[in-house]
């Protein structure tokens, strides 16, 4: 594909995710986390939350629709950096609409540095979280030195 600056600012169509307690619990258990508001609705409420909440990195699982014109190779991508910022925790029962946009794109030699910004909003349209992933795409398909982490 053509890695031109025209791609900057392009966004996916919105995609809605329903947040289920079970998915939050499975994610927290995979990380062997013990903080009770990830599992127990009563503990979550006494900590000031509406229901059980998601661990901070759970937002990575809320995948977006494809960005038109962006074709990421299946391999040869390095996840270089990751950032999440939260207005409030993702909470069971939420409906979160995610939109992913190409925020930055820089070609350097055989590599493309791509920053994808994903914004999650609740049904009122308020921003819940913003996630930024820096992906390094290796255009030299012959030498796959590394792949996505």
């Amino acid at each position: 594909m053509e890695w031109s600056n025209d791609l900057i600012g392009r966004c996916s169509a919105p995609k809605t995710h329903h947040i289920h307690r079970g998915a939050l619990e499975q994610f927290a258990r995979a990380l062997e986390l013990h903080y009770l508001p990830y599992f127990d609705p009563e503990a979550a409420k006494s900590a000031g939350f509406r229901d059980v909440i998601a661990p901070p990195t759970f937002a990575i699982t809320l995948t977006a629709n494809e960005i038109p014109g962006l074709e990421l190779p299946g391999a040869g991508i390095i996840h270089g950096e990751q950032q999440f910022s939260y207005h409030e925790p993702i909470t069971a029962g939420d409906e979160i609409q995610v939109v992913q946009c190409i925020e930055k794109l820089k070609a350097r030699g055989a590599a493309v540095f791509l920053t994808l910004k994903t914004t999650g909003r609740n049904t009122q349209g308020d921003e819940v979280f913003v996630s930024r992933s820096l992906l390094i795409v290796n255009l030299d398909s012959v030498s796959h030195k590394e792949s996505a982490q």
Partner: protein
Amino acid sequence: MTPFVLPSFTKTISQEHLIRYAAASGDFNPIHYDTETAKRFGLPGVIAHGMLSMGLLDHLFAPLYDQGYRLQEISVRFRQIIRPGETVVFSATADPAGKNTLKVSLCVQSQLANKPAVSGQAIFFRPDRQSR
């Protein structure tokens, strides 16, 4: 106010961690479970998901959550691969910035390595009681 160290912890990353994380996150890239595929991409073998290391950092934050802090932002840089079987140290130092804010520097380092696999920072905010 002076910086303080959060209780660190050590974890040996197992194949089971990788498989359970793949299932929970939906990240089924074969480099995290198939040795042949991993080698084809120039890796020494199966590697842990970067997001698994980042996710495990949350163990460090439990004492802050218990004090009423909430995570506002976390950002990391993935610097080195981690392979299953490696024993990894997760550590953090908190630096108070203003009355209700903490800036926390983060480090994930394999015991075999001389530099961090993951470094980063997190910002925590403690809302006043009446607004919680």
